[in-house]
């Protein structure tokens, strides 16, 4: 009898459970994984190098395309790094808007994650439920920036524009019956904040709904409990951040520990896991959605009460309004210089990090005083998480690898950059 024991299996890069273009070389002993070697880089676009050849503001749009399910959080880190180097700070209202949209983004991301992870492990319904809510929040993105996903909404010195007075309504079409349109427009009579308020109030029930489908579900537990256990020490060693670290029981959240934007002023809790397995990380993310809705509600209340500027009044960094441009020569010159040459950032280096839905998203920026960054390095949380795949997958069955990819919340836009 031949002595061939290990079998090499090629998982992806075109596998639906690979969440994009992950190529995983698995060395199998029967159905047990002996070694997992992820091959990444199939989506590498050299974002960091491209950013070196463009004025600062022109790269904000690239940030959306990194982790393309948590767009605005990526922008936030990039914009914070520029602001740190310039020594400017966004006005209060802009910071509250950022806080609100960071949390909307977190909900968007976790909905995508729970839908896709559920689908991978055999829970079809949840995907449809999650996308129902996602669609509503995408409309908010669109209302505020004009784009459903790649918003380019955050700018150094604030946000692009203030929140709209009127939430856009859904129109009847070949694909939407009048009854559907009426149901969808029910919340959209008032401003965007009214709509969001309705959504967030309702969202707690929606999260409960997701939980009825999964939390006590026997199959869900069989696929998740005790899978991919990571001890807190190992989680720190492996560079885990975000829900992956909190799932292992480390109460670390940048929003609490190193607050940015207005997180110092909002009230929320950090959920922490106990066992460090996939099921705990699932529970952490579910609770994070509730906490995000809580933060969003507080931000909405503040934004309703306090109108004000959303951009610094510093024409060396932020463009003057169209109106001013047409009356004022000085404003026209500023506008021209900003949109042709951009602004020069003083020499130095800075690292800015935000608590993105997947973990710590950081932006390390070196400026030599030019109108383009000398070097940008983007610290993507998924990169560190995926590098631990080998350690997490060893000794597990092949089907657990799918659960592990799901629990790491892999998105290739940010890993390959």
């Amino acid at each position, binding site marked *: 009898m031949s002595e061939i024991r290990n079998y090499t299996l090629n998982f992806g890069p075109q596998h639906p459970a690979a969440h994009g273009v992950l190529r995983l070389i698995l060395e199998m002993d029967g159905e047990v994984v002996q070694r997992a070697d992820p091959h990444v880089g199939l989506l590498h676009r050299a974002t960091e190098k491209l950013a070196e050849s463009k004025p600062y503001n022109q790269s904000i749009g690239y940030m959306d395309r990194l982790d393309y399910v948590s767009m605005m959080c990526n922008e936030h880190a990039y914009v914070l790094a520029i602001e740190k180097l310039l020594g400017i700070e966004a006005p209060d209202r802009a910071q509250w808007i950022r806080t609100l949209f960071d949390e909307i983004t977190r909900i968007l991301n976790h909905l995508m994650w729970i839908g896709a992870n559920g689908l991978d492990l055999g829970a079809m319904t949840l995907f449809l439920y999650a996308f129902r809510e996602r669609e509503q929040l995408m409309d908010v993105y669109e209302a505020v920036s004009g784009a459903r996903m790649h918003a380019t909404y955050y700018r150094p010195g604030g946000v692009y524009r203030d929140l709209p007075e009127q939430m856009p309504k859904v129109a009847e079409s070949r694909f939407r019956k009048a009854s559907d349109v009426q149901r969808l427009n029910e919340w959209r009579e008032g401003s965007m904040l009214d709509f969001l308020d309705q959504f967030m109030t309702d969202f707690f029930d929606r999260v409960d709904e997701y939980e009825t489908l999964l939390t006590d579900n026997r199959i869900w537990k069989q696929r998740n409990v005790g899978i991919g256990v990571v001890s807190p020490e190992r989680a720190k060693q492996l560079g885990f951040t975000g829900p992956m670290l909190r799932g292992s029981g480390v109460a670390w959240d940048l929003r609490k520990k190193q607050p940015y934007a207005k997180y110092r002023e909002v009230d929320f809790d950090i959920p922490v896991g106990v066992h460090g397995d996939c099921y705990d990380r699932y529970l952490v993310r579910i609770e994070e959605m509730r906490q995000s809705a809580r933060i969003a509600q507080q931000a909405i209340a503040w934004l309703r009460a306090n109108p004000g500027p959303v951009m610094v009044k510093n024409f060396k960094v932020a463009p003057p309004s169209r109106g001013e441009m047409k009356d004022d020569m000085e404003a026209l010159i500023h506008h021209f210089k900003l949109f042709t040459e951009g602004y020069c950032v003083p020499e130095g280096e800075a*690292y800015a990090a935000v608590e993105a839905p997947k973990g710590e998203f950081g932006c*390390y920026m070196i400026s030599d005083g*030019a109108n383009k960054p000398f070097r940008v390095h983007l610290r993507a949380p998924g990169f560190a998480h995926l590098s631990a795949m080998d350690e997490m997958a060893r000794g597990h069955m092949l089907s657990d690898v799918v659960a592990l990819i799901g629990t790491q919340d892999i998105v290739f836009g940010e890993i390959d950059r």
Partner: protein
Amino acid sequence: MSAFSSRNQSLAEHIQSTLGERVERLTEHRGQLTLELSPKHWVDACQELRDQDGLEFDQLVDLCGVDYLGYGDDEWETAEATGSGFSRGVDHLGPGRFDWASRPEAENIPNRFSVVVHLLSTDLNQRLRVRCHPEDSDFPTLSSLLDVWSSANWYEREAFDLFGIVFEGHPDLRRILTDYGFIGHPFRKDFPLIGNVTVRYDEERQRVVYEPTEIEPRVLVPRVIRHDSRYLGETTESTTD
């Protein structure tokens, strides 16, 4: 020691007292501490940063390479421009302006490359940036931090792939982000932005083929350095209406 803000003061003192002469330079910029180490103390100093009380940097958050070739070069002279008008026709300066055939010769300038590490202590809630310049710029090498922090694994592979920095002692130093069989280190400043080869599927040959890149290198906005006084003081223009 008044060079540090009160927030970083005690950390800076801890580092000075623990590492002593191994500290090449310890500076603060924009409220962030940067520690420079020489290559020969790279691993043992990092080990102490992780283990010593008061430092306890248990996480390596980020590691990246930097290529300092062309640092501070601008493509357009602006200081005299008001009198003479702007110069025209800039070429062969930034990576966006040349192709593979006309790429500049790699220069062996001292301290061309550096490896920058961002550390985080979750217990003490403090951050530190550590920088090291590999000695030889033709063949930059540095010891691997893999034994100190496991997360260095892929980050070092990335720095090797993109900058060609070799990490001694790394057990699995393969390319990570670029294509199988890729030539060159794409994030070096003497590597063209448009790249080297184009990949496409050839209908006739029924396979993927590699061809030299055909697009023209071009940059829309020239690189300009302006030495303004406006950022030197406090925020000079008010931030509200």
